[in-house]
Structure formats: C-alpha cells, structure tokens
C-alpha cells in the first residue's frame, strides 16, 4: 500500500468536495459529516466532472445527466450511469488526507 498525501483536511469544509490530481488521476475528495471519502472524479457514464455536481447526504449527483452515486462505495443509485465509481481508501494523519491509489 502506498499512501499519498492529497491535502490538508482544513481546505475541505463539511459537506464540500474538491478535485485533485494524484499520480495523473483525477480524484475527488469529499467531506461528509466529518468523514472523508475518495472516488474517481469523472462520471462513469460520460466523463462529467463530478466535483461540479451536487452532494446531498451520502449521494453525489452528476452535473451533466443526473446519475447518482453513493459516496462510500461508488455504487450507482440512479442512471444513466451503469458502472460504479472507483473508490480509494482514505487515511487521516496529522490532519492531512492520504489516499491509496
């Protein structure tokens, strides 16, 4: 397992999300209820930028065609997306967010 530091937790207020480049991948980090989640930041349907979508509880909605995903495991809750989003384990250390890609 190789942990990579993404950012400080301070830059992600509660119920917010931000896109980062980690090892040439576009990764989305979400702060929901004080817990951090990490997923692919492009929609599995048509590649929309999910960081521009909306977060409602643990549901992430795509800004282009409205696909919905569960942020904890990337499961598709509503189409048109059919494929789940890849998720990455998050580790917190000294108030910083690390992910394993």
């Amino acid at each position, binding site marked *: 397992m190789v942990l990579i530091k993404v950012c400080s937790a301070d830059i992600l207020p509660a119920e917010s999300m931000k896109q980062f480049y980690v090892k040439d991948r576009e990764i989305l980090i979400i702060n929901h209820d004080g817990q951090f989640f990490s997923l692919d930041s492009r929609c599995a349907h048509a590649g929309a930028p999910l960081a*521009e979508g909306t977060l409602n509880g643990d549901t992430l909605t795509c800004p282009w065609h409205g696909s919905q995903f569960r942020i904890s495991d990337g499961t598709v809750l509503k189409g048109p997306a059919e494929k789940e989003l890849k998720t990455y384990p998050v580790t917190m250390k000294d108030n910083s967010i690390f992910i394993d890609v």
Partner: protein
Amino acid sequence: MNAMPREIVVGNGCLSVALDKRMMVRDFTFPLVGLENHAVGHPFRLGVWVDGSFSWIGDDWDVSMKYLPETLVSKCSATNRKLGLELEVNDAVYSFLDLYLRKVAVTNKVDRKREVRVFFSHDFHIYGEDSGDTVMYEPSLQSIIHYKRKRYFLVNGMTDEGNGIYEFATGQKESFGREGTWKDAEDGVLGGNPIAQGAVDSTVSFKLEMTPKSASTVYYWIACGRNIEKVKELNAVAKNTGTEQLLLETENYWSAWVNKQSLNLSILPKEVTRMFKTSLLIMRTHVDNHGAIISSCDSDVLQFNRDTYSYMWPRDAAICALAFDMAGFQEVSRLFFEFCNRVISDEGYFRHKYWSDGSVGSSWHALVNAEGQAQLPIQLDETALVVYALWKHFQKYRDLEFISRVYPRLVVKTSEFMQNYRDEDTGLPKPSFDIWEEKAGVFTSTAACVCSALSSAAKFAKVFYDSKHQEDLNSTAAQMKEAVVTRLYDGKLKRFIRGIYPNGHRDVTIDSSLAFTFLTDTFDAESNEVNETMKAIRERLWIDSGIGGLARYENDEYHRVSKENQGNPWFICTLWLARWHIKTANSLEDLKKALDILVWVVKYSLPSGVLAEQVNPYDASPISVSPLIWSHAEFVIAVCEYLEKYQLLSSS
C-alpha cells in the same frame, strides 16, 4: 429588439451560435467564426403551445442559462407556472461537423394528459443580407431548407417518439407589414406554405402527446453547408446517429479539450477554477479554425454604430493567444500566428482590424490628421503585441520549426518597421492611435509595447544567430525605454503620463493602460515608476461608489453610466491591477489582493460565466459587447500568473 448580452455561445471553429437571455439564437456565423453572420441579431425563437395558449420563451418564463460544467454544451431551463410547463434545453455545435444541435426536454407539470407543441422559428438573413433568400419545404426529407448562393441551412428534428416536423410555415417578412411566420404561429397552427423568396423566415413545430406529469423530448438541428448535398449528408448523420449521441460526443470532446493540460488548479477557489475553464472554452468559440480570433460574436452593438466587434483586432487576439499559450493550448495560438503571418502588410505592420477571412476590416482611423498631414492609420501596439506574444510562445514551447516559418515576416519585417517608425530626435515611436482607438499621438502604453517587441525580436535574432540584428534591436529598445522615462514619466506627478500629441500637448490623464509598462515586461512591476503609477491608477480609477472595479481612465465617456465615477468598471483594467498585485507579491498573504479581484470578476460575470466588456457600476449589468474575449483572456492570464507565483512563494 433591445440589445441583450449573449448568455451562451457554442461553436466548433467554423459554425458559431450565440443565444440571448430568452434562449433565442441571435448570432449564427458560418463558415468562418465571425463571418458571415446569417442572423445579425434577428431572433430565432423557441416557443410552446398548450391548452390553446401560445408563448415564446421570454419575460413570462423563469429562465436560467448556463453551460454544463467544463464543456461547450448549454444547460438552460425555462419554467412557466401558468402554462404548467418546464423546458430543459441543451444547445451545442457538434465538434466535428457543422450541425447546430438543440435538445428540448419538456415536462408536463399538470396532472392531466395534454398535447404540447414546440415551435422553432428561423429569421435567417443569409450572408447578413435581407433579400434574395429562399426558404422551402423539402418533402423527401420532411425538412425546411433556407438557401442563397453557396449557403444552405437545413432545419429538421425528431421527437423521442420518432416523429418528425409536425407542421411548418414559410413566408415573407420585413415588408408590407409582414412580421414573419413566427407571428402566424401564435395560434398554434402553421399554414404549410411550401416556399417563399425574398426576405423570408420559417417556423416549424413538433407535437408531443404528453401523459400527466410526464416528460418528452424534441431533438432539433440545423445542418449548415455550401450546397444542398452537404446539408442532406449532415441531416442523415443527425438522424442516424441521433442528437443524444452527438451531444454526448460534443460534451466529451470539449471536456477532454479543456482538461488536457493538468495545471494544478486545486489551490484556487472552486468558482475561480470553473471560470478559468469556462473562459478558455468561450475563447475557443471565438477562434476560427483558420486562425482569426474575433473580439466578440455579439452583434447587438450594431444598434449603436452599424458595426460589430466580430473582427480580429491584432491586440485583443495577441493577448488571447498569450492566454492560450500560458494555459497550455499552443496549437490554438499557432493557428493565430499563422493567420497573422498571412495578413501582415508587406511594410511590416498590422492594420486596425481584420475579417476572419484575412481581408482588412472597417476602420475609423483617417489617413490624414486634423492638420491635413498624412498619417499612418494604425495602432502600433497591435503590431508590437503580436511579436511579444510570439516570443512568449516560443519561450514556452521552443517550437523552432514553426517559428522559422513565421520569423521572416512576423519578426524581421515587423521589427524593421518598428525600428524605422521612430522619431529620431526623441527615440520614441512616431504617432499612432492609442490602445483605446481614440486618439493619435505618442502613448506610454504603445511605447512600452514597442520596447518589449524590439527586445523580443532581439531574443529571436539571438536564436537565429543574427548577432548584428540582435545588437541593433537591443540598442533601439534600450534607447526607447530611456526615452519613455525621460519624456513620458513626470517627476513632479511621480508617475507615467498617458502620452504626447503631435502638437506637443502632454496628456497627463491617469489611464489604466499605463499598466502595459509592466505587463509587457518593459519595466519591472516593482520599480518606483510603475509602483507610483499603479498606486495612482488604483486611487483615482477604483469605483468607490458602486460595485468596485477599475475604470479605464479619468472621465471615460464610452457608455458612461454616471458622472459620480471616472467611468464604468472594465474587467480587463481591473485584472491588470490583479496582475500587478501578483507581480509585486512577496508572500502568500500579499497574493490575496489578487485573488480577491479574481473572485470579484467571477461575481460579476453572467450566470453562464460570460464576461462583458464593462459593467454598470451600480447593478453590475453588462455593458457594450458580451462576451468580450479580451476580458476572458485577461482572466486566464491572471490565473496562470497567480498559480505560478503561488508555487514560487510556497516553495521559498
């Protein structure tokens, strides 16, 4: 039709379509971006008929117009509570073919079955003219075709049930009291007249049988070509591939395009990142695939002076190319430099402005001055900025083979001209028109641009091992810089003055364009001369009694809203202030002033992200053309400079 900003522009470098706040197509240019405009501001309407009532999208509707994030497909909605209807509309121009696509998803909000008819009207003025057009119904394709000479526009569509055009009308307009077929549509029925010629328009409708609280979709397109075979071919593509798929492909293409450069944007606030990408995309809609970068597609300014901003001004375009280069889009700026290489005069200067096909544009600069003496009707900074931008391009990309193709004309010729177009007594450039295109004289901003261009040419000469030329250019640039300090810096005022007129009159107006002294790297942004000048600009031109932002110069009358301020806030001028804050920042804390301005720009953009030329100082409504590509380019440049400085200060 009142002047309205363009909220959405979509295009593919050949076909460009701009929509106003009522979702009406107002500018439709093909086959070049900015040329020819087949709508010239005349509206192509979208409307509905339901329960015996008709309504065009307009003031009765709650309208929202944005882009889908990170792409060139619109995301618009219109709700009419009275009619119980909601429309969700996506507009795009297909990335590879000249097809304007429109998806209209209609939601019946009422709990009963209803028939809804969706209407699209077309007020084509082919080649921008109001006569000699033909519009006809084509039965084998069940479509409408507008044509004249070598321009064909085929209108067609399909509902999600697979039904084509339900009814159509063609007819005459603009004569004998005829308003056009769009007016006839308002009873919900179209007459089916199969052909009309002269000044003509057309309207088509699609019928949706809607169940209670349900949604249905109309897919609509306009295929553009130089002959009937081409538009038939494109019509077949739209029909066979399906608009839904073409929209998906377009979304993906522009998303991949704008994200190709992995700049680290994560340090920026989300809204600034969004605006950065939107700006690049909107800028791209104004780049013709043959290289011209037009200043604005918005033709409503025609109402004021019977001319538009749909020209390539070498200044605006060079700054736009610089922005593309800084953001990593060198292939776009290369197109522009190749265009410049084709159109530059044999004498080595650029004229006032150009059409997208390279022909010389209209001008208000006379060939004689007020005293009747001959003058060259040019703005010298336009030539200089192209050379400066070309050097910046080469500095970043080192594409020597490309540069060697344009070097003889864009560097050698231009620098020879600029060296010769100099007053031997003063060492300054000879008079030319100022950056605001208003007055002829010797201006500080122009001289700074020329100094920078000569230094750039010297650096190119070094690359090409032309040491004699390099020496001469460096020496001329140094003499000119010294002359700027001696003659255009006022020791008593402790700042640069605007310029000197041919009659010797010194113009000491505080003008934001004095920022070009450091923007072109001629003077250090931290030098006393620049520091004092920028402080004077900030103090005198900041709009205190309104929304903020920087006016162009003292007592600027162009579209002036109130005498309480020096002028209206201009995005470009305000962003120059941000760039000065960036250049002079010594800590991350110092950079905050620049970030505040970037956020200010986002705040006063249109909801779609479009930036006007200027805004009303009190209510921030857009003034003059909208979008203005220079505004977007300055935003992109400021963000790139901010990122670079942030990196530098973080690592030190």
